[in-house]
């Protein structure tokens, strides 16, 4: 197609936009409203995900190891003297427990790191573990010493963070199966709640976007249908003088795309303003700053809006035009 034709057709598209300005304004208004709702759904989803992400960070599991302390308190040690030569003063043999040294404990941590979905593993010595218990129970070191008779009953452990909470149970099971682990302390119910919220928000978001996309398509199609109706004489002449389908189609596509793009830009501006007002109110009321910044999402939203606008504009116009392009001469008068 020649540049003269392209210039002419693009010009015709914008001319249509102006000639049908009432319909264009209505379409831009409704399409923009759809985009603002889609944008709000996205921002809410992002904020929920951020909050959940914080919860996920706090939801760690502790895998306790079969070390000497474990053997002392938990392992079933045979009481008979038979075959227990070389046992220490507590009657414990080296073979009664699995983790004999810090190096072996760290090697086990490495094994845990190798499991899929394990994001981070931190080795906790039995001394550190005891301190954590003391802090949790809010007791002094001296009191603890008195209470435990100078012994430390806490086994060394691995503090584990996961990548995907929906695979929580499976990952815990895999960790439990490792040789040297005797207990994995976890909050499975919290993990499943987090996963359920995350999935719920995700599914709702997808549905909202899908429904609004369909609405957007219908809106643009209707505008194009009105334009088509207004220009049926022109289209019939175009076809009579030998215009190709593409030639007839382009002004309508330009019109659809322009409606989509204008709606996208306006939606971005309105959403920015609304979100700023809303977040300022939330920050002042809840005294929290843990909210997704609009600046972090601005480009994603703009690209998304332009995508929706262009898809709705192109498909909306193409669907409608193809219906009309099959008509010939006098059939236009019957439309």
């Amino acid at each position: 197609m020649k540049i003269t034709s392209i210039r002419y057709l693009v010009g015709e598209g914008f001319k249509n936009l102006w000639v049908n300005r009432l319909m264009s304004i209505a379409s831009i208004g409704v399409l923009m409203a759809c985009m603002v709702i889609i944008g709000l759904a996205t921002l809410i989803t992002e904020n929920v995900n951020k909050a959940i992400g914080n919860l996920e960070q706090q939801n760690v599991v502790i895998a306790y190891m079969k070390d000497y302390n474990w053997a002392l308190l938990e392992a079933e040690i045979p009481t008979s003297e038979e075959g227990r030569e070389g046992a220490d003063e507590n009657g414990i043999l080296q073979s009664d427990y699995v983790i004999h040294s810090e190096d072996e404990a760290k090697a086990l941590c490495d094994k845990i790191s190798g499991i899929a979905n394990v994001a981070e593993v931190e080795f906790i010595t039995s001394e550190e573990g005891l301190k954590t218990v003391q802090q949790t129970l809010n007791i002094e070191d001296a009191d603890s010493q008195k209470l435990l008779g100078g012994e430390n009953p806490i086994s060394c452990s691995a503090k584990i963070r996961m990548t995907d909470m929906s695979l929580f149970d499976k990952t815990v099971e895999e960790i439990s199966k490792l040789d040297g682990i005797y207990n994995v302390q976890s909050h499975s119910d919290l993990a499943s709640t987090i996963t359920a919220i995350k999935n719920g928000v995700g599914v709702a978001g997808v549905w909202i976007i899908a429904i609004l996309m369909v609405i957007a398509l219908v809106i643009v199609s209707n505008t194009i249908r009105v334009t088509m109706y207004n220009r049926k004489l022109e289209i019939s002449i175009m076809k009579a003088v030998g215009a190709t389908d593409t030639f007839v189609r382009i002004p309508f596509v330009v019109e659809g795309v322009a409606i989509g793009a204008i709606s996208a830009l306006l939606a971005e501006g309105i959403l920015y303003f609304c979100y700023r007002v809303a977040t300022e109110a939330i920050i002042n009321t809840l005294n929290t700053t843990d909210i997704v910044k609009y600046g972090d999402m601005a480009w994603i939203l703009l690209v998304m809006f332009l995508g929706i606008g262009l898809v709705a504009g192109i498909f909306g116009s193409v669907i409608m035009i193809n219906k009309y392009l099959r008509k010939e001469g006098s059939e236009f008068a019957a439309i």
Partner: protein
Amino acid sequence: MEHQIVPSENIKPQKPIIEFRGVSKTYQTGTHALEDVNIKINPGEFVFVVGSSGAGKSTFMKLIMREEKANTGKITVNGFNLTTMKRKHVPLLRRTMGIVFQDFRLIPTMNVFDNVAFAMYVVGASGRDIRREVSKALSKVGLGHKARSMPAQLSGGEQQRVGLARALVNSPDLIIADEPTGNVDPNMSYEIVSMLTEINKLGTTVLMVTHDHNLVRDFNHRVIMLDGGRIVADNAAGGEA
């Protein structure tokens, strides 16, 4: 107004510009519009197509413009085989013909110049060619001075002349005029057919549907008469039956 019978000198023994061979057309409603039509129109001819309402004139024209497809038979127009032609090639066929409509079909929001130029934009002509050819076509129909007028400011005859300029602007080999005098007064009717005759003398084939027997008689071109979907008369130019 008297007109001399002047058979076109451009008629040479060559392939027909329009040929119907055993063409029949039945609409989905069951109406038999055309039955076993056989006709040849040579390049450079001026042909009137006459007949009463429902005779099949419109279907005959629609088949030539490929607005409709024949159920049986073979149609050739300007070297295109319309029977086997794909839909995407229809615009190429239509670019070889100029069409004049009874109701003018001018775009009311465009001035005279743009209404004519429109046909050239469609075929991708350059801005310079459009300016030159549109001016030429408007001068040919005597409307060079009304290029900036809007269709509503013109009389019926002037509007039809704009339609004629639009049909001419791409220098087609064939002009199809579907009752071009149906909405204009008798004087203007003569003027329009005179213009078409002048265009025909320059070598363009003209096919014109009309109800006006006076025009047919006065201009004495070849006449094809349709009745009940069949050709009932076909006299060559000069009065031969």
